[in-house]
């Protein structure tokens, strides 16, 4: 069964999800992984947990059976014992990843489902480098504000733009410092 189409790249029953998350991260796979704990198989529960991946980074989650979304999906999948996991690659991210309520912090699956701090850290770093998973996520916020180069670039650009526009709008007299000739707009 495929829930969102795509090409199956990996399918097996595993003791934990670490290897699959690692594989997706290393291969920078965009698509999704379905996770079905063995308990669920035995109990004949319906549906699977789906982790949306962007460039190998888990960014969102939902459960097709229970309808749980985001972090709650992970709580549901956080049960001991083996699980069946399938990894699918797609050309573009799955649509449910766009919904903020489905979003998860990138490091959370590694933290909660695998309890592998190293994998979680590598995932967070990859999320920051690859610009994914940044919509509702403490890790991404912290990574952003501690990325001095990125922040400085935004501020520099804004400063230049503010001064250029001040010239366009006749507000140069209101500027705290005189306009430099290199950023002034020719009248």
């Amino acid at each position, binding site marked *: 069964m495929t829930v969102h189409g795509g090409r199956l790249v990996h399918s097996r029953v595993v003791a934990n999800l670490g290897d699959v998350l690692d594989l997706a991260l290393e291969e920078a796979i965009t698509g999704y992984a379905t996770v079905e704990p063995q308990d669920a198989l035995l109990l004949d529960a319906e549906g699977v947990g789906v982790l949306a991946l962007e460039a190998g980074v888990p960014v969102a989650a939902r459960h097709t059976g229970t309808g749980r979304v985001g972090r709650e999906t992970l709580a549901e999948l956080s049960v001991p014992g083996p699980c069946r996991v399938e990894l699918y690659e797609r050309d573009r991210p799955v649509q449910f990843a766009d919904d903020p309520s489905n979003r998860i912090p990138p490091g959370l699956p590694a933290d909660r489902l695998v309890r592998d701090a190293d994998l979680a850290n590598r995932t967070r770093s990859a999320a920051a480098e690859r610009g994914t998973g940044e919509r*509702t996520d403490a890790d991404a*916020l912290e990574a952003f504000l*501690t990325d001095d180069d990125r922040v400085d670039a935004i501020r520099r650009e804004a400063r230049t733009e503010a001064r250029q526009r001040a010239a366009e*709008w006749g507000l140069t007299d209101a500027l705290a410092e005189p306009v430099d000739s290199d950023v002034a707009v020719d009248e």
Partner: protein
Amino acid sequence: MVEAFAVASGKGGTGKTTSALALGMALAEEHDVTVVDADTGMANLLFHAGLADVDTTLHDLLVEEPALPVGDAVYERHGMSVVPCGTSLAGFRDAHPERLRHVVAELAATTDVLLLDSPAALGSKSAVLPIVLADRTITVLQPTVPALSDGLKVREYARSYGTEGAGVLFNRVTDESAVERVAESSDRYFDGPVLGVVPESGAVRAAREAGKPLLAHAPDSPAAAAYRDAARTLDVDAGDADVVADRFASAVVPDPP
């Protein structure tokens, strides 16, 4: 004595208007407060304050030959003075942004705290004027990377005009730990402390639908409590009213040719 704050964000949907009215109501317990909808292109404060049906708005004060006294667009609501802006395209088209300084100057003469609910985007002169005119900016941020990025941009614009930072109000927060972890860095970049952390709340939408400020509609909600805390953290530093009024009236913004 008056201090003017631009409530700004750089991004729509962060809750600037809700925040401006909530801070206004909280500050009104100690100060004489005036809240102005300075978002002349996409006004919405009138809906939040139950003023959707009023005849006279800021737009009417910004037309070339207004002849209307500023007081005609000032409404006493919920313990504060509120100046809504109209929503018609014609009103926006006929408005002269430069006149905002005169309006602000006049309002400054009779209030302690001026809160200018500012436009989200910075793409026009009218949009940037509130942060040019204000003494300090209150940056309203959702704890997301795009919102922080846009907030940095607004802060840098404000800094370019010598407008100081009053701090950051994190709004619509679902994960408080996210804010705690970034508080130190955001302080560094937004020139002020984290004033408050306001949780995402259904009460905000309900208040908006009821046409009431949050603090009037759901005063006991956690979000309302967070706004009151933020207002206490905001250390109002009111300057001399005459000086401020004079600055608004005479300084910076040239009249249209």
